[in-house]
């Protein structure tokens, strides 16, 4: 009976903590945008973060998207062959899937694991070793010094990585389409460009921009709020990655719904 009585308390606490977390993350986003709006951007630091997020993530994004394109072409070719006796429209399936969904989602998932985890761990370590406090005592706002460069780096680099992922994935699909299914490359390209337009491209880019904002704000927030030494840093990192991934996958549906409603793609 005592345990049952604790359930509403447990649920209430959980809801309150979630609401508090969302509020704090929202305020962090507001502060970050405020400093960017006032032009307080440390470009040297920002470019270093762009290299870290963009260039350093490129190999893993390239590898995963190349194989994703290949497997899409393999699966769709086999399915169409089973249904229509002919592996048709492979380019269309690969193009739409990658540009509107898998490019932005897979890129963001990889970035949340690679960059989000690194941001949460780095800032979390700075928090527990009092380096964030030290910034204040040296006349520096941590949001301005740490959050702004990471935010700019993520919201610019993730859409670019997503575009690169689309291109590489489509080439992966082309390889399977030509060498496995024997489809001429001109037909593959026609299947893509006859059915897709610039709206589809922006559909994916807008999504990846929003996913990037989710990842970077969640990771910075978890780092800044980290408590309790090494264990706290571990928990902050895990929770930053988990929350980012869940938010990417859940918000993807609602974003798609909204963008389709707005006739973007």
């Amino acid at each position, binding site marked *: 009976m005592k345990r049952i009585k604790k359930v509403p308390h447990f649920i209430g606490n959980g809801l309150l903590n979630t609401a508090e977390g969302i509020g704090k993350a929202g305020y962090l986003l507001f502060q970050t945008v405020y400093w960017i709006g006032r032009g307080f951007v440390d470009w040297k630091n920002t470019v270093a973060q762009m290299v870290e997020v963009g260039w350093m993530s490129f190999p893993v994004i390239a590898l995963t998207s190349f194989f994703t394109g290949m497997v899409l072409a393999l699966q769709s070719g086999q399915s169409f062959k089973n249904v229509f006796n002919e592996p048709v429209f492979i380019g269309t399936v690969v193009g739409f899937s990658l540009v509107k969904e898998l490019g932005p989602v897979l890129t963001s998932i990889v970035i949340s694991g690679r960059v989000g985890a690194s941001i949460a761990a780095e800032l979390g370590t700075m928090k527990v070793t*009092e380096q964030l*406090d030290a910034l204040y005592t040296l006349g520096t*706002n941590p949001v301005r010094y740490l959050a702004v460069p990471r935010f700019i780096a993520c919201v610019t680099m993730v859409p670019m990585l997503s575009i690169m992922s689309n291109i590489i994935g489509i080439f992966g699909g082309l390889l399977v389409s030509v060498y496995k299914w024997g489809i001429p490359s001109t037909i593959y390209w026609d299947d893509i460009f006859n059915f897709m337009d610039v709206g589809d491209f922006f559909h994916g880019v807008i999504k990846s921009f929003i996913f990037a904002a989710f990842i970077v704000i969640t990771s910075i927030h978890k780092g800044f709020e980290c408590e309790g030494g090494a264990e706290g840093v571990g928990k902050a990192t895990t929770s930053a990655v988990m929350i980012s991934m869940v938010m990417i996958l859940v918000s993807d549906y609602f974003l798609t719904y909204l963008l389709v409603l707005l006739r973007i793609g």
Partner: protein
Amino acid sequence: MIKVSGVHKKFKSKQVLRGVDLEIRDAETLTIIGGSGCGKSVLLKNIIGLLKPEEGEIFVDGKETTRLDESDLLEVQKKFGYLFQGAALFDSLTVGENVAFGLNNMKTIPPNEIGKRVLECLAMVGLKGVENLKPAELSGGMKKRVGLARAIAHKPEYIMYDEPTTGLDPIMADVINDLIIHLQKQLGVTSIVVTHDMKSAYKVSNRIAMLYEGKIIGAGSPDEIKNSKDAVVHQFVEGLSQGPITLNLDKNF
């Protein structure tokens, strides 16, 4: 001058400060002593504005700081230098960049003089030729000294030392004590030292205040504290296991 009046601070349900009243006079070194976890560092962080008290007021040079907005608080914080317990050096920067960090941000001296000032501060704490090393390449004592060089680089009016000798060997601890005295005499700054190292407290302080159960229970010169009749102060400064301060130890042990 700093005046702390009726400051209360709690973390979740744990009440750490329960109405602290304290005055730190200009150009003195005041040491706050007390057991581990009694709230000494919390008090320092309230004074410098890194934490906000739930109740009470803190005046720095006559200005109440607990309700200042961020930009005004940053201006007040520029008057302070803070030596953190673990030095809190920025891992990604070199020693030189760490010491120059505050100077670059506060713009208190022209940029072309920063390099010279960094070398001066490092020399003042007895370090030469380390400006290009990363903090990971330094020993604990060297990190503390770099932290001190960083804290004094912008010539603050107040320097706060959070456990400056903790984790150091006795000789290095005494070197740090000498540095605190030397800096106070040379720069004429007001210093607040937080420690539970009584040898260090007696050596560096003009006055000592004891924090116990969230309140200042006694303050006076090192001699007055050493000869205090207060049972709690006496037990602490003598380092006695028996007395009014209980650590909830297993009595059968």
